[in-house]
């Protein structure tokens, strides 16, 4: 009697694991997943990504806070791309900064019907969104700030995104680069922020524009944005990208 039960249980384990594998299949079109390079850590990252996309409601909103919750906020990584002694110095950004970003343009290109060159004024002309949210750094610290900006989704719609688009790549003046899938790119709280705590976005926090991806860990919210490229294929960005430096691409966790 007992022996029989054990066999049944073992079968149940196997069918359970098979079912889990089946869960992964819908996300396994290789083009839509970041490459793993045979690295088991990247496979784990992809498992988390696929599981989040399969199990979590698509575009749930993150918690928003009260103005009195606004906290001190460390500026890490690059906090002044105009510092010529810094390894991520950008002469181009420095020149634009000296002219108060009057000549700064955000280029929106790739798989779009109408490539755009948006000035700060153009962006501020689009419907503004304010949100007081928590920044969660992979290091373990958190901070709360009020961000003002335009939805990335609105900008992408204005450019007329093409149906086969799968990823939105973004490039910064300090050399950082990253990408989002369409779900996070069109998340209602994913914004191109030009304001922080009621003022223009300060230099240490990414002036003139930074990405805010509230559903992921801080380093997806790249500062000092320069260019947005819509693509249909995953780009690892070589040595400038996260995954070849050993960091996860998806960071909802």
């Amino acid at each position, binding site marked *: 009697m007992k022996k029989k039960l054990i066999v049944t249980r073992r079968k149940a384990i196997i069918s359970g694991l098979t079912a889990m594998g089946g869960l992964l299949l819908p996300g396994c079109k290789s083009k839509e997943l970041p490459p793993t390079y045979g690295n088991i850590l990247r496979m784990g990252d992809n498992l988390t990504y696929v599981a989040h996309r399969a199990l979590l409601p698509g575009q749930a909103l993150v918690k928003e806070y009260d103005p009195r919750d606004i906290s001190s906020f460390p500026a890490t990584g690059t906090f002044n791309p105009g510092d010529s002694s810094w390894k991520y110095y950008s002469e181009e950004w420095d020149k634009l900064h000296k002219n108060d970003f009057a000549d700064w343009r955000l280029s929106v290109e790739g798989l779009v019907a109408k490539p755009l060159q948006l000035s700060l004024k153009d962006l501020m002309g689009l419907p503004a969104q304010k949100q007081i949210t928590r920044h969660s750094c992979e290091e*373990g610290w958190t*901070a709360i700030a009020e961000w003002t900006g335009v939805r990335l989704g609105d900008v992408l719609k204005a450019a007329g995104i093409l149906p086969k688009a799968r990823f939105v790549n973004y490039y910064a003046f300090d050399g950082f680069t990253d990408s989002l899938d369409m779900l996070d790119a069109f998340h209602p709280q994913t914004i191109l922020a030009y304001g922080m705590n009621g003022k223009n976005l300060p230099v240490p926090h990414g002036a003139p524009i930074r990405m805010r991806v509230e*559903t992921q860990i801080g380093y997806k919210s790249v500062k000092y944005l320069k260019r947005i490229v819509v693509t249909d294929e995953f780009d690892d960005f070589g040595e400038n990208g996260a995954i070849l*430096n050993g960091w996860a691409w998806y960071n909802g*966790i």
Partner: protein
Amino acid sequence: MANASHHSTWVRICHWIVTLAFIALVFTGIEILMVHPRLYWGEVGNDLTPALFELPISRNYKHGGFTEGQPFFQTPGSPVSAGRTYDIFNQNGWGRSLHFLAGWFLVVSGLVYLLFGFIGGHFRKHILLSKKEFNWSRMMIDLKDHLRLLIPRASGGPDYGILQKISYTIIVFLALPLMVITGFTMAPAITAAFPFLLDLFGGYQSARTIHFFSTIALLLFFVIHIVMVILSGFKKQMLSMTFKRSYEKETDRNPS
């Protein structure tokens, strides 16, 4: 218990997967904590806000490498912004990804274990205290025996003593679930879907601090568990938790 009992296959598989996952989680957890060895309460905590306490476990401990704070508002006591000038220790690339990979093994085998434990009656029969054992004087007797290190030889199966059952109950139904759920509370995509998690623990940083103290509790259990395995017959315990056979012959030394 003279009857030849032994650990079920699924118990043995789950036990060792969870053990390996736990070791990987502690190892990477320490690495992650070393990157920011400060713990807080509430939603917010960073180098510019006060910590509950700080741990001297990496060069990041009280590094103080920040530019002068610039206030965000003109009001006194305004929150500030400051740029970090210090090159911190940070190995979170592999640390985080390995932590989450091990977390997958823990969660999946933990769910299998819970499912089988409830369905097959393992929890009712072997882990939870029976009505008879829910008795203060019996508990005190078992406690005194433990304090005098009067540990019975292992039976090679799930014939657990009272304190043993209580500790397994706490680990299975409280400490490990708390560990997993406070971990989830630090995931922005998960708290977007389940915002009550943040309210449940009082915020992201509170969840992180509870995650830390649960680790301490689990490590304490881990050490005591290994000591008890040694005291009750290391070789037999390891064999019976690994291979499918009972070890009756070796139980003969059992003092009655």
